[in-house]
């Protein structure tokens, strides 16, 4: 207790000095003419909403796993990184944020044993006297692994390790994380949230042993947060987390939870029964949607949009697919693990049973465990600290300074690189459409699901549907204003009146990344899915195949320089050629950049070795919007 208090004082002092070196915020700038009268707003306030980017999933030394990965940086360091300051990686190099400062950021340390490992490694604490502490911080890899796995097993089973489980210490570290968020939250400039990760994992149904399917959720508080965080040591059942969140909401602590990595949930994230195997009900759907309006669709451990086996007619489905269960080389079940399939399952449930538990919007994050996210392919550091901090650890360059991939030794390290690290991604970021950069405005956007997810670049996407849009709306100088006035935007319902809707799809490239190749609408019904190219850099979509002509954009693999042109902006009014006014449908937008080198190719290029042969050498960065749900009228 004494230790943590002094740590927080040091952090406070450091944070205050960090702030004092920054420019003061000018409050009295000319007010933007769109701000409502009388409302207290920041200079940027706009009724047509601004695009803000952030990372909602960051770990620090207070996460039990991060500490073992040699991460010693704090929540203050995390927020400083997001604001553009240089922070050191545990492997010793500097990390700088790609693309400039972010607008919002949330530290989401694992609530289980929050801050316990640092205390175990601090002389003089009772925790440091435990035999397991001596093992955990010995130099014997077998002892470290055994001690670490003991903690992991407890997090998964929910059975506390009594001598290690110091609830007052956990609470005090949770309060420190809340304080750090509070210190760095600056309305109009930078938004933070009190947040943490709830770390639930599947168990095998036969024998109750570790299943390795990821059921993790990040919990975000809109503003004030309760003094204690609900973790898997309270219950491993996410539905109990929702009960707790409902109770917190009743106390005035508004919160949402965001599940991540359904791709490695072993089919459990979107399964058609409750955690305990009971049938789904309308109450279940209500409670789930009240507490989990968003899902993280892309991050360092792969993309959860869809899988090539689920979407054989989607030529872009095979993108940064990662399927290994947690801490394992076993492959996750595909069905029940991807959001596009879940959208269809949700519509089917709605048609058959009258409720939909899978009506969620999309966000993205890095899940970095080194306080700073690696979002750029050409400046990557992965996520697990010293374990994958260098190119050779993550298998982007051959082992042991070889210059070829032909005779690679089979060791634990190379196998981990092959099965895990080489398949991880330089991803992702959440975009929101919000009036201004404040907690309230951004959290309200989460609630509205007016969000989009990118795989790292900051392309911006607007998406609206209406029965009223004119064909020439796209050239109206007040396009965004009219689109809001006449239609509904991402995250919303469109209720049918017999007419066919039209969709405004509007994308703007990240001015500091590659230009755009195409914008697509993905349509999902209870029985089918279809991908339509709707706006192209070159030409227009073929009315039969719904595909853009090839724009000829490629990458020169000897330099990673892109060749060919792309679009700065894509904008169109689209109507669904297969629209059936009596059928429920979910529509979302996917925007593709021109191809660029994947991080593994950049690293091989820098090391002067051939790129790793068993992963893609280029990729197309992309953005996904939250859907618009069409529901037939009565």
């Amino acid at each position, binding site marked *: 207790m004494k230790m943590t208090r002094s740590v927080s004082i040091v952090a406070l002092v450091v944070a205050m000095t960090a702030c004092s*070196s920054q*420019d003061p915020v000018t409050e009295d700038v000319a007010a933007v*003419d769109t701000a409502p009268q009388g409302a207290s707003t920041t200079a940027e306030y706009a009724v047509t909403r601004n695009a803000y980017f952030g990372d909602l999933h960051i770990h620090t030394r207070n996460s039990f796993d991060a500490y073992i990965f040699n991460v010693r940086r704090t929540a203050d360091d995390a927020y400083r990184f997001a604001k553009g300051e240089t922070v050191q990686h545990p492997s010793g190099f500097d990390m700088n944020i790609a693309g400039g400062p972010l607008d919002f950021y949330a530290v989401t340390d694992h609530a289980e044993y929050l801050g316990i490992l640092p205390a175990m490694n601090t*002389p003089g604490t009772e925790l440091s006297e435990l035999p397991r502490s*001596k093992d955990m911080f010995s130099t014997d890899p077998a002892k470290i692994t055994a001690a670490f796995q003991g903690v992991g097993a407890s997090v998964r089973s929910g059975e506390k390790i009594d001598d290690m489980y110091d609830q007052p210490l956990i609470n005090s570290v949770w309060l420190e994380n809340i304080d750090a968020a509070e210190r760095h939250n600056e309305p109009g400039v930078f938004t933070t949230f009190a947040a943490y990760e709830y770390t639930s994992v599947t168990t095998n149904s036969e024998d109750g042993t570790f299943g390795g399917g990821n059921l993790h959720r990040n919990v975000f508080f809109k503003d004030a947060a309760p003094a204690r965080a609900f973790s898997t040591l309270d219950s491993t059942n996410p539905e109990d987390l929702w009960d707790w969140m409902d109770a917190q909401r009743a106390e005035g602590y508004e919160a949402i939870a965001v599940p991540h990595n359904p791709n490695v949930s072993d089919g459990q994230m979107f399964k058609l029964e409750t955690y305990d195997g009971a049938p789904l009900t309308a109450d279940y759907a209500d409670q789930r949607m009240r507490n989990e309006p968003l899902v993280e669709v892309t991050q360092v451990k792969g993309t959860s949009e869809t899988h090539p086996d689920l979407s054989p007619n989607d030529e872009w489905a095979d993108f940064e697919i990662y399927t290994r269960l947690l801490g394992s080389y076993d492959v996750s079940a595909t069905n029940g693990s991807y959001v596009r399939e879940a959208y269809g399952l949700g519509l089917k449930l709605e048609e058959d049973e009258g409720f939909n538990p899978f009506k969620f919007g999309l966000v993205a994050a890095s899940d970095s465990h080194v306080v700073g996210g690696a979002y750029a392919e050409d400046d990557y550091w992965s996520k697990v600290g010293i374990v994958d901090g260098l190119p050779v650890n993550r298998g982007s360059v051959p082992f042991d300074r070889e210059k070829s991939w032909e005779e690679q030794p089979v060791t634990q390290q190379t196998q981990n690189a092959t099965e895990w690290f080489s398949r991880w991604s330089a991803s992702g970021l959440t975009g929101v459409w919000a009036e201004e950069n404040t907690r309230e405005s951004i959290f309200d956007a989460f609630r509205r699901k007016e969000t989009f997810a990118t795989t790292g670049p900051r392309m911006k996407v607007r998406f609206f549907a209406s029965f009223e849009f004119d064909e020439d709306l796209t050239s109206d*100088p007040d396009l965004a204003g009219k689109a809001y006035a006449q239609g509904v935007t991402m995250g919303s319902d469109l209720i049918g009146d017999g007419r066919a809707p039209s969709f405004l799809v509007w994308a703007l490239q990240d*001015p500091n990344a590659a230009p755009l190749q195409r914008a697509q609408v993905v349509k999902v019904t209870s029985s089918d899915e279809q991908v339509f190219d709707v706006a192209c850099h070159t030409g227009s979509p073929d009315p039969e195949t719904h595909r853009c002509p090839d724009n000829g954009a490629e990458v020169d693999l000897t330099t990673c320089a892109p060749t060919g042109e792309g679009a700065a902006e894509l904008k169109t009014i689209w109507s669904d050629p297969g629209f059936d006014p009596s059928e429920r449908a979910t529509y979302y937008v996917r925007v593709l950049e021109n191809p660029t080198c994947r991080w593994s190719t950049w690293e091989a290029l820098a090391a002067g070795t051939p790129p790793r042969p068993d992963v893609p050498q280029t990729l197309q960065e992309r953005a996904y919007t939250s859907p618009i749900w069409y529901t037939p009228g009565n």
Partner: protein
Amino acid sequence: MKRWIQEPLVHFVLLAILIFGAHQVVTSGRSSSERTIVITQAEMERLASLYAVESGSLPTEQDMRAIIVDQVQQEALAREATRLGMAEDDTVVQRRLAQKMTFMLSDLGQIDPPSDDVLQDWLTEHADRFAQPLRLSFDHIYFSSDNDPRMESLLTELSEDPNMNWRNTGDPFMLQRRYADLPDREIVRLFGGQFLEGLQALSPSEDETWQGPVRSALGTHLVRITERADARMPPLDEVRAAVLQDWTEAEQRRRTAEEINTIVNRYDVVIEGVTKN
């Protein structure tokens, strides 16, 4: 609790007890022999304060005696363990020792504030940390193509009628048409570096009038700058506290690193399998 420890009277009483206790337990005298255990007055004072902090009351004579006996035993046993080489295989002990050494090194004396010349040099060398960026307020009209024929006539109209409704012109822009007080890096984040360069090339004497076209990564823009605060290097007096803080932290790191280096250099380091080159 902390406050009374700082009271001079408390110090006095503590000291008296210490001297009395010390006299009874150990005889004074210096020896360089490894077989001599010296408990210094400073050490006794530290032990007494520790006791006081933990128990909330001052140690009695009897307590003090017990504390010192304990300390002597601990010291003797630790030396014996060291003599037997026990610390050498114990990672935890080694890490604690190294940690302690590092803490000591980083706490080597106070760093006195340097002269203004040193601070001024520091400010100049690390200008990027203290510089205030260019900030611009501007309106812009967006054209998605690079050579939209409407641009030229629009520029003429805008110059002839400053009150015309410029928001109704050009192509729709996805973000805002008016920006207030944007620092240069925000301009780059929103429009790309080319646009910032274009804005910087505009003459300040033409502020408040429509100018352009200015190219960006997103298209072409007519621009009216409404307010500008040029990038500037603040004089030392304005940022003295921040510069001093930055310099002191760096100096501390430098001194610590230097001390560690000096110590490491006393050893020959052999890492098996790695050849020096």
